């Protein structure tokens, strides 16, 4: 049983305040969707929690099981059980997928997996996500299509088994087939045990496959409305217009 507790989080980029006091609690077993218009600060929330150097924390706390993630370097946050699936995974030349995954799994689990078992685990994970076996030898994200990058993010999610996963617009840029494969991966992860999911999305489309219990609307750097799945349905029909106007 794990809890991610975001308390009055305030974040700036340079001198510009982006997050203006975010409060949110995600417990394992729960799936929360954060929805909002472009530029509302959704991705900032994801990257600030993960510790991206571009974002400055100007106030608040992010507690994972009582420990403040904001006091930890990026890698320690990941080892503590936080995972961020990125909207735009970077290409890292010369670092192979298999080398990267083995290094990450070793770091997060605290010991190197046995090669034979890891190979088997990796193959199983790749089969589930319809990722070609040749992928393991390719350079990290280099020349991957949008869909391949997202499937690779979910492969990492399933291998690293975090306590809390933050998925930043994992659905963007995917066609329906790829969206289904990725959603199945997220659902496998949700069913695999004690995990919480914070799903950040602009569109309601993915929520047909990955059903949240809680929906939060984000506008101008904070949560402006909260509800159950019915709130997503309302956004589907009404759009974000009233939130954009209210915050303008």
């Amino acid at each position: 049983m794990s809890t991610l507790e975001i308390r009055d989080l305030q974040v700036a980029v340079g001198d510009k305040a982006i997050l203006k006091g975010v409060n949110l609690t995600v417990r394992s077993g729960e799936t929360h969707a954060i929805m909002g218009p472009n530029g509302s600060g959704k991705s900032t929330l994801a990257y600030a929690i993960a510790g991206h150097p571009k974002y400055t924390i100007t106030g608040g706390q992010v507690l994972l099981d009582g420990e403040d993630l904001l006091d930890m370097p990026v890698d320690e946050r990941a080892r503590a059980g936080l995972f961020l699936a990125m909207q735009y995974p970077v290409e890292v030349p010369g670092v192979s997928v298999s080398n990267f995954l083995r290094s990450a799994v070793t770091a997060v689990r605290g010991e190197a997996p046995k090669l034979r078992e890891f190979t088997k685990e990796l193959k199983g994970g790749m089969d589930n996500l319809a990722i070609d076996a040749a992928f393991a030898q390719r350079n990290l994200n280099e020349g991957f299509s949008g869909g391949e990058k997202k499937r690779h993010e979910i492969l990492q999610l399933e291998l690293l088994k975090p306590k809390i996963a933050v998925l930043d617009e994992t659905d963007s840029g995917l066609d329906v087939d790829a969206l289904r494969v990725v959603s199945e991966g997220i659902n496998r992860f949700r069913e695999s045990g004690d995990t919480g999911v914070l799903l950040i999305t602009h569109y309601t489309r993915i929520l047909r496959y990955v059903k949240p219990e809680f929906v939060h609307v984000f506008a101008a750097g904070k949560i402006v409305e909260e509800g159950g799945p019915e709130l997503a349905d309302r956004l589907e029909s009404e759009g974000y217009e009233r939130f954009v106007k209210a915050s303008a």
Partner: protein
Amino acid sequence: MGLETKPLSTLHERASYEPADFEVPTGREEAWRFTPLRRLKGLHDGTAAGSGHVVVEVDPAPEVVVETVGRDDPRVGAAYVPRDRVSAQAYASFEKATVITVPAQAVASRPTTVTLRGQAEGSGEGAAYGHIVVKLEPLAELVLVLDHQGSAVYADNVEFVVGDGATLRVVSLQDWADDAVHVSHHHAQLGRDATFRSFVVTLGGDLVRLSPSVSYTGPGGDADLNGIYFVDGGQHLEHRLLVDHSVPNCRSNVTYKGALQGDGAHAVWIGDVVIRVEAEGTDTYELNRNLLLTDGARADSVPNLEILTGEVAGAGHASASGRLEDEHIFYLQARGIPFDEARRLVIQGFFGQMLEKIEVEEIRERVARAVEAELEK
């Protein structure tokens, strides 16, 4: 275009075996403006005493003929005429040359290693000069390793004569002690349909200035010039390439990558490619990348491409120098990988694709270990 307004094709025109035919460099010349002349220990102005020693040992493949010859041997200086003062000084000053010959159609069954070991114990013991000729007769094949070690002030010229249809693969490893000074010209002359693969690895030395050049005597010549370097604080490692396409339908590809760390680490890469009027159908590309790992390091990277014919198959160049990307490190760290390991993975990745091109397995492993050791510093 830097300080010079003269076309590239005229910069390398002067050639002579006599040091006196070249003015003593002052540092203002295009060819010398990046090199710290006072650290050359007199190699450039004739004040270096020729009292140093570099011992040359050859471990040849059985198919290869190795000779030590005097200055008057006709094969010496046949393919290459010095193009600067230090090169001419080396030519005028060496006593014995090493000539390595692979007979026509012979395929060397294992790598031939030439170890050049500087004998100086501390500086101030004077300069040493050398000359090596590697001659592949038609359709011969050879893998050659030049392994530079120890401490020395050393200037030399190396001639690679690659006969028609022959294939020469060379790894030149500059693994000198910290105080070594090495100024070297490597010239490859490619016959018809000849193949030349060069891999330069420069790690050691206080100052290394290596000038690999390629010329073609018949169509179909194919040259790949690859190099990596790792520059530490205070080191000056300079690579000056010249590919002179004067014959139709030849190919060249130049790829050099370097990493720099520490105060005063200085890398210089000059990539000159000339495609002359006659050289129709030339296909050439050159690339240099530098990774600056700390403040206080400096990389100068100057690709020059002069095309004098309208009919090329391909011609291009690229140069980029930059720091480790925060986004790369962040991505790896966000997966739990600690900073130091993330940094090592990204740097190994930067070099990794290069190391795969080293044809000799023992050397490839040795270079991989050396790069690893540099990262531990």
